[in-house]
C-alpha cells in the first residue's frame, strides 16, 4: 500500500495503548480513540486550518418561498479583508442536472443545489457566500448583505395540509413501501368485539450533533483538493463533489477521520461541502466553511408525522385487524421517505392488515434520516395503540404482546433470521420487576407524584451493505487494516481493531484500523446500524485470508510440523499459529513471515451480502422497553425514574461500546418523549427555536436509572460475524413506553410528542390543552373532521 500523496500529519491515528494485550469478541473494550478525543488531539473537520486558508460564511434566506430580486453587496464588499461574495449570478460553474447531485441515499426528486438560481425554496436557504481573509470579517460582512425578495405564499403546516397527501416515489436506499393489504382489515375491524382507534402526531426534530457541519478544503499547489467534511461517508461526499464540479477522483480526496456525532445529518453531503469546494475553486486557494448552530436547522430533519392506528381484537386479546396510516412531511424538491408503518405488519401475528404511507410536500428543506428513521415515530404510534388496546381488553400490556407474538413476519410470511424478542420481554420484565405492577391507572402515588409503569416493543432492520477491507501484516507483527468506513462516535476504530486482533490472535495494540479517507477501500455510509455487519465482516474476511496465507507460509517452514496440517486444524492464538489446543506446536507469526523472506502478508476482501439467502428471511433487531415515570399532574412535570431495555441484536462484539450506543439511544427516546421538537412559525415558514437553549434535549438532571440488557443471538444470515447492529434500536419504543407509563400513572392518554407540561397537566379551568391543542383527537381541525367536510 502506497502512502497517501496528500497525507496530513495532524490526523491522529487511534491505536490501543501498549499492554492492551489479547482480546476476544464480546470484550468490554474502552474506545481506543477516547484519549485522543478528550485531550483535544482528535481533529474535527473545522480543525485543519492552514495559515492561508480563507473563510466562508453563509448568508441565509429569511423567506420560505419566492425569488431573489436583487442582492445589495456593496456595503459587505467594503469590509476590509473581504475577498469576494458568491451568489447565483456570480460563482464558478457547477453542473445543472439532478443526477450529478445524487448521493448514495438520495430519495427520488431534484436534490437541492446551493446558489444554483434565484429561487427560494425554504427559509434558511443559502443565498450568498461571503469569502474573507478572516472568519470575523466574513461574518461581519455577511451581516451586511441585503437581499430583496419577491415572496410567494408558502405552506409549512403539515396538519393543515393533510388533504394534499399523496403516494411518494419509493426510490430510496433501504426504503420499502408498505406491503399490500392482507385480508379485509376494515371489515375485520368493524366486526371485532374490542377495538381502539386514535391519531398520533410528532413535530419535526433536528439532529443537533455537538460538532457543527463544517468543511475545510485544502488546496495543494497542483490543484488537488483535500476536503475535511463532517460526514458519515467520505466516498459519498467525494462522489457528489466530483460530479457537481466535474473533478476526477485523483483531484479530490475527502476525509472524515473524526466526526462529532451526526445521527443521520451526515449521511447526505450537505450544502456546506458544495459551497466550500465552490469557494476553493473560485479563489484557487484553501477555504473553510463552518455553519453556525442556527444554520444547523437549515437542512435535513426528522419529518413532522401524522399517524392513525386502528387495532381490533377478540376478547382474549387475539388481534383481528391492524390498520396503520401515516403521513410524513417532505419538501417540494424530493420525496423523502422512511419506513413508518411496515413495522405494524411485522411485530404481531394478525390475519388482516392495511398499512398506508403517504407524504405531503411542504416548503421546507428535504427531511433526512435521523436515528431510527420511521421506526422512532411508527413504533411509537403502534405501541401506544397496543397499550390502549390492553386497557380496552383489561389485559396486561405484556401479556397482550405475548398473545400475538409473531414467529413469522405477518406481511411477507417469512421466518426471522433470528428473533429473541420473547427472551427480551422475559429478561426485561424480570429486571424491571414488571410482575409487581398494579394494573389500575392512578394506583401508585408518592407525595405530589403519581407513579406509572409502562412498556413497549422496539424493532429495527438488521442491514448489511457491501464494502471492502484491505490488510497487511508486517514483518514486525503489526497489522494495518483499512477501509473508507466512518466512526461517527460509535466506536468503529475500536470494534474493527478488536475484530482484526481477535481473528489473528494479535495483541490489540498491534492493530491499526484506518478509516475516514475516500482513497481507502470501498465502504458504504455509516448508517442504518449496518457498519459492524458490513465493514466488520469485511475485516474478519480479510483477516481470515491472511490466516490462510500465514498457514501456507508456515507449511513451507522446515520442521514446523504444519506441513501436513489442514487449515481446519490450526488456530491463531497469542501472536502464534498452532495446532488447535496444542501450545507446544506454536510458531510466532513474526517468525513465519521472517522465514518466508517476505516483508509481510497482504490481502483484501470484498464483502457482498448474500442476498439470495437473506431474502428468505426477515432480518431484524428487537427490544423490549420497560419504564417508570413519576408525574406531578398538577404541574405537568414528568420524571423518567427507571428505564430498562432488553435488546436482541445478534452477537455483541464490544459489550461496552454496544451498551453505550443503546443507552444513548434510550436517552434520546426520553428526549423524543418529553423534550424534543423544532417549532416552526408557519406565518414565516421558519424554524424558530434554532439553538441549544431553546431546542430542548435532556440534561443530566432529567436522566435517572437506565439499563441496557443484551439477549445474545448468533445470526449468520445477517453477517458472518453473527452480529447485527445496535445503532438505532436503543431509541425505538422508548417514547411509547414513557407515554404508556404516563397513562398508567395518570389515566390520561397523550398521543403526541413531546409530552410537555401543558399536555401532561391534569385538565381543569377550561383551557384547551393536551393533544387537542395541536388538532389531533380533538374537535379542532382534526384530520378526520377535515376529510368529512
Amino acid at each position, binding site marked *: 500500500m502506497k502512502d497517501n500523496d496528500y497525507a496530513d500529519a495532524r490526523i491522529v491515528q487511534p491505536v490501543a495503548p501498549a499492554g492492551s494485550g489479547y482480546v476476544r469478541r464480546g470484550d468490554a473494550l474502552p474506545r481506543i480513540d477516547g484519549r485522543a478525543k478528550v485531550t483535544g488531539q482528535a481533529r474535527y473537520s473545522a480543525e485543519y486550518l492552514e495559515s492561508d486558508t480563507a473563510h466562508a460564511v453563509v448568508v*441565509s434566506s*429569511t423567506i420560505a418561498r419566492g425569488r431573489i430580486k436583487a442582492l445589495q453587496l456593496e456595503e459587505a464588499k467594503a469590509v476590509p479583508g473581504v475577498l469576494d461574495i458568491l451568489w447565483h449570478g456570480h460563482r464558478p460553474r457547477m453542473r445543472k442536472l439532478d443526477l450529478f447531485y445524487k448521493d448514495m441515499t438520495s430519495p427520488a426528486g431534484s436534490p437541492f443545489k446551493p446558489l444554483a438560481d434565484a429561487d427560494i425554496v425554504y*427559509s434558511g436557504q443559502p443565498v450568498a457566500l461571503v469569502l474573507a481573509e478572516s472568519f*470575523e470579517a466574513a*461574518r*461581519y460582512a455577511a*451581516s451586511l448583505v441585503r437581499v430583496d425578495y419577491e415572496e410567494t405564499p408558502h405552506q409549512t403546516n403539515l396538519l393543515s395540509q393533510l388533504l394534499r397527501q399523496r403516494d411518494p416515489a419509493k426510490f430510496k436506499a433501504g426504503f420499502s413501501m408498505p406491503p399490500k393489504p392482507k385480508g379485509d382489515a376494515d371489515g375485520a375491524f368493524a366486526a371485532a368485539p374490542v377495538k381502539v382507534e386514535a391519531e398520533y402526531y410528532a*413535530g419535526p426534530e433536528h439532529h443537533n450533533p455537538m460538532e457543527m457541519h463544517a468543511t475545510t478544503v485544502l488546496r495543494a499547489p497542483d490543484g488537488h483538493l483535500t476536503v475535511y467534511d463532517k460526514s458519515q461517508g467520505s466516498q459519498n461526499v467525494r462522489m457528489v463533489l466530483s460530479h457537481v464540479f466535474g473533478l476526477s477522483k485523483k483531484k479530490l480526496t475527502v476525509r472524515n477521520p473524526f466526526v462529532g456525532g451526526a445521527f443521520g445529518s451526515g449521511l447526505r453531503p450537505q450544502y456546506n461541502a458544495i459551497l466550500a469546494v465552490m469557494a476553493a475553486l473560485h479563489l484557487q486557494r484553501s477555504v473553510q466553511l463552518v455553519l453556525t448552530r*442556527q444554520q444547523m436547522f437549515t437542512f435535513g430533519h426528522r419529518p413532522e408525522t401524522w399517524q392513525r392506528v386502528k387495532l381490533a381484537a377478540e376478547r382474549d386479546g387475539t388481534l383481528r385487524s391492524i390498520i396503520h396510516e401515516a403521513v410524513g412531511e417532505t419538501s417540494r424538491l424530493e420525496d423523502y421517505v422512511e419506513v413508518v408503518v411496515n413495522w405494524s405488519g411485522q411485530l404481531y401475528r394478525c390475519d388482516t392488515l392495511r398499512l398506508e404511507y403517504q407524504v405531503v410536500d411542504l416548503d421546507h428543506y428535504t427531511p433526512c434520516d435521523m436515528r431510527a428513521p420511521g421506526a422512532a415515530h411508527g413504533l411509537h404510534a403502534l405501541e401506544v395503540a397496543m397499550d390502549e388496546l390492553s386497557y380496552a381488553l383489561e389485559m396486561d400490556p405484556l401479556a397482550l404482546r405475548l398473545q400475538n407474538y409473531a414467529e413469522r413476519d405477518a406481511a411477507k410470511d417469512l421466518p426471522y433470521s433470528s428473533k429473541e424478542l420473547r427472551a427480551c420481554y422475559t429478561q426485561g420484565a424480570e429486571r424491571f420487576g414488571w410482575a409487581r405492577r398494579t394494573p389500575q391507572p392512578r394506583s401508585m402515588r408518592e*407525595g*405530589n407524584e403519581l407513579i406509572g409503569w409502562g412498556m413497549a416493543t422496539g424493532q429495527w432492520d438488521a442491514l448489511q451493505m457491501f464494502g471492502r477491507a484491505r490488510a497487511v501484516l508486517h514483518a514486525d507483527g503489526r497489522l494495518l487494516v483499512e477501509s473508507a468506513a466512518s466512526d461517527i462516535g460509535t466506536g468503529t476504530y475500536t470494534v474493527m481493531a478488536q475484530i482484526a486482533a481477535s481473528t489473528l490472535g494479535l495483541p490489540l495494540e498491534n492493530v491499526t484500523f484506518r478509516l475516514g479517507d475516500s482513497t481507502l477501500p470501498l465502504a458504504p455510509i455509516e448508517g442504518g446500524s449496518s457498519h459492524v455487519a458490513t465493514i466488520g465482516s469485511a475485516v474478519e474476511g480479510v483477516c481470515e485470508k491472511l490466516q490462510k496465507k500465514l498457514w501456507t507460509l508456515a507449511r513451507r517452514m522446515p520442521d514446523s510440523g504444519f506441513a501436513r496440517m489442514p487449515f481446519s486444524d490450526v488456530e491463531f492464538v497469542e501472536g502464534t499459529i498452532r495446532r488447535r489446543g496444542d501450545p507446544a506446536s506454536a510458531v510466532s507469526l513474526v517468525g513465519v513471515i521472517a522465514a518466508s523472506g517476505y516483508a509481510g502478508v497482504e490481502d483484501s476482501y470484498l464483502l457482498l451480502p448474500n442476498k439470495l439467502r437473506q431474502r428468505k428471511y426477515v432480518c431484524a433487531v428487537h427490544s423490549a422497553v420497560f419504564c417508570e415515570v413519576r408525574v*406531578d399532574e*398538577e*404541574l*405537568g*412535570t414528568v*420524571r423518567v425514574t427507571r428505564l430498562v431495555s432488553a435488546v436482541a441484536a445478534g452477537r455483541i462484539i464490544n459489550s461496552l461500546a454496544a451498551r453505550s450506543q443503546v443507552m444513548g439511544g434510550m436517552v434520546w427516546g426520553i428526549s423524543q418523549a*418529553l*423534550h424534543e421538537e423544532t*417549532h416552526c*412559525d408557519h*406565518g*414565516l415558514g*421558519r424554524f*424558530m*427555536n*434554532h*439553538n441549544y*437553549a*431553546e431546542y*430542548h*434535549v*435532556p*440534561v*443530566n*438532571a*432529567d436522566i435517572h436509572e437506565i439499563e441496557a440488557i443484551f439477549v445474545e443471538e448468533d445470526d449468520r444470515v445477517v453477517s458472518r460475524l453473527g452480529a447485527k447492529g445496535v445503532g438505532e434500536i436503543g431509541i425505538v419504543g422508548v417514547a411509547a413506553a414513557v407515554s404508556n407509563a404516563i397513562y398508567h400513572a395518570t389515566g390520561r392518554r397523550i398521543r403526541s410528542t413531546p409530552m*410537555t*407540561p*401543558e399536555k401532561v*397537566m391534569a385538565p*381543569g*379551568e377550561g*383551557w*384547551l*390543552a393536551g393533544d387537542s*391543542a*395541536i*388538532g389531533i383527537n380533538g374537535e379542532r381541525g382534526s384530520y378526520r373532521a377535515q376529510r368529512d367536510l
Partner: protein
Amino acid sequence: MNPFAYSKPQDVQAALAQVAGEEGAARFIAGGTNLLDLMKENVMRPARLVDINRLALDAIEATPQGGLKLGALARNAHTAYHPLVRERYPLLSSAILAGASPQIRNMASNGGNLLQRTRCYYFYDTGTPCNKREPGSGCSAMGALARQHAILGASEHCIATHPSDMCVALAALDATVHVASPRGERSIPFAEFHRLPEDRPEVDTTLAADELILAITLPPAGGLRAHSVYLKLRERLSYAFALVSVAAALDVGADGVVRAARIALGGVAHKPWRDLRAEALLVGRRCEEDAFLAVADALLQGATPQGAGLGSNAFKIPLARRAIVRALRQAAQGTVTNLGGRDEGGVDAGLRRNDTVGGVTA
C-alpha cells in the same frame, strides 16, 4: 460580529467616563454571558465595550441594618453559595441555582443578571420583525410561537418576558439597585427597575444608558427566611428558562397566622410580577388552601393568553395558578432549598438532584 472598540478601566469613575456621551452606543460588559451571544447574533451592535471586570464591585457584605449588599460584579455562583446569602436569603440562593448552567453561573455577574434580555425566539432572529430589537418593525410572536411569552402586563407592541430567576427572588425580597452615573449615585427600588413594554419595548429597565449598577442591597429578611421557596417549572430540569416560576416567602407567627407574604412570578411578564394587594390577602390569615387560591386568582387577574396552536401559552394561566398555590403550600411548611452538598468557596460544579421541581425541605 460588528467591529467594536474595547477598553478595560480600573475604577468606576473611569468606566463612567468611557461610556458617557456615547448615547447608548457603548455598553458595559462583565460576564458577557448574554451580551456576547447577542452580538454574535447581530441583535446588539455596541460600538464600544467597556469591560468592568477590574472594578472593585465584587464584595458581598452585611449591611449595618442587618441586610446584605451584593456587589454588582459578584458572580452568580459565588452569590448563591455565599454563607450570608445562604443563611439570610435561602430564597435568593435557590433562585440563582435554578437558572442557567454551572458554567454560566460561574461567569455571570449580579449586575448583568438584572440586565439580561428576553429569550423571545424572534428577538434573537434578525430574519424576523421584532419591536424590541427594531422598534416599529412589528411583533412576530403575537399570535404565533409564544410559549415563553407574557400572560400579564403585555402591550400591543411586545409580549416578551424577562428571563431571570434571580430577579424574581430579588423582587420578592424588596431589593434595591444602587447605580452611578456622571450625575452621581441613586437608588432604584427593585419594583421600579424593570419596566413593562408599553409603547417602548426596546427599553427593558429604568437604568439610563450611562448608568452603571454598583450593588444590590437587601433589607433584613426577618421571619421570611424560615418560610421561602423558589418553584420553577420548565421543559427540562436544568438549563431551560421558566415557563412559570414563583418566589414565595411567608412570615408566619407562632400562632400560625401570616404576618407578611411576598410572592413574585417569573416567566409571565416583561418584569418579575408582584401584586402587593394580592399579598395583603394573606396577611392575618392561616396557611390554608382557599387563602392561597384567593392570592393566586388575585395575582393572575387580567391574565391573557398569547400565541396560537402549538405556540399558545394559554396553559400558563392555570399552570401559574397551581404553581402559586404549590409554592405557598411548600413555604408554609418551611424553607425549600436546592443547595445540596457542596464545599463552600470554589466554583459552581453543578447540582443534580437539587434541580428538581420540589427540592429538599431544609
